[in-house]
């Protein structure tokens, strides 16, 4: 059977309160979900708000909920997700909606800061370069988690974030794990305290939604498991601050 020549696309309009509006969009070969949204905004309704930048899966701007699942829309082909020529496109879950498909990412990035997600070194410009063997166990662990683009797909997919708004979420914890495994970082004692407990890694139920849906095929669940282990050991030794 030939592919349908049009798509029926339901798009969220409004803020936290709103409704789906349906558009008919021409079906093209090798069409991405972002192409569909762009067509609607440029041709059918210029008041539609959405966010994108690089269009090649690097910037992490264009994540939306497509047919009920968080996805990066620039690298999601319509052929993979459309059901009988229909798409439903909504903003990412677990974040405030600014307008239409645009979410306010402030809570997401505030949690990166709360998880002490920035590198804190002690070396000065007069010190020699740190020598970190690429095949050292810590470097390998950091490498496995480092390619996060901050798209928020994991955060929008996480049930624990939905149940516990204070929970730091998979991306912030994954970031903290890369720093915990960075031999040059000097803030790990405080970082472990920041990511532990009821609002941190120990709240993770290992549902694996983040790992299943991460478009970069990272495993935040594994990173969180590593943090759980280290923070629990620190707590048992009485080394966990706070």
């Amino acid at each position: 059977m030939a592919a349908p020549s049009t798509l029926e696309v339901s798009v969220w309009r409004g803020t936290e309160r709103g409704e789906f509006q349906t558009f008919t969009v021409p079906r093209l070969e090798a069409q991405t979900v972002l192409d569909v949204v762009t067509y609607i905004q440029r041709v059918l309704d210029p008041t539609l708000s959405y966010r994108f930048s690089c269009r090649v899966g690097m910037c992490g701007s264009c994540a939306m909920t497509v047919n009920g699942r968080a996805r990066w829309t620039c690298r999601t082909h319509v052929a993979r997700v459309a059901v009988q020529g229909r798409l439903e496109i909504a903003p990412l879950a677990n974040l405030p909606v600014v307008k239409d498909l645009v979410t306010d990412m402030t809570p997401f990035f505030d949690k990166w800061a709360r998880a002490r997600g920035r590198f804190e070194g002690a070396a000065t410009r007069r010190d020699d370069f740190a020598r970190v063997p690429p095949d050292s166990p810590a470097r390998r662990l950091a490498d496995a988690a480092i390619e996060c683009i901050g798209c928020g797909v994991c955060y929008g997919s996480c049930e624990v974030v939905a149940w516990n708004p204070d929970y730091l979420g998979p991306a912030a914890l994954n970031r903290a794990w890369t720093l915990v495994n960075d031999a040059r970082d000097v803030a790990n004692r405080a970082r472990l305290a920041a990511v532990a407990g009821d609002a941190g890694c120990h709240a993770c139920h290992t549902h694996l939604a983040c790992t299943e849906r991460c478009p970069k095929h990272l495993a935040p669940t594994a990173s969180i498991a590593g943090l759980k282990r280290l923070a629990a050991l620190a707590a048992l030794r009485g080394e966990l601050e706070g």
Partner: protein
Amino acid sequence: MNVRSQVLLWAAQRASAAVLAVCVIVHLATIVYAVRGGLSAAEILGRTRGDVAWAAFYTLFVLAAAVHAPIGLRSVLAESFGWRGRSLEIAVLALALALATTGLRAVYAVFV
């Protein structure tokens, strides 16, 4: 509750889960074995009374359950019903004490 205490609760739940995994298997296997040919209350008491090993095993079982269940319930109540803070801590502590008290009383009853 401070972060260290929260993490220690998490560790206690994991450790008690490991104990329960063994205890539940032994408990179920014992039930299946003991009632194969039918077993009266008197026969059960005849085997448990004065048996320090069984009393020690079920004491461990009861204490592991009293630690494990309230910590899990604490998460369920916080995440599903938004109950957090000191009142929740007191409620789950009361549950832990109730489970330990009634469980240990039952162990004592079949031991003496």
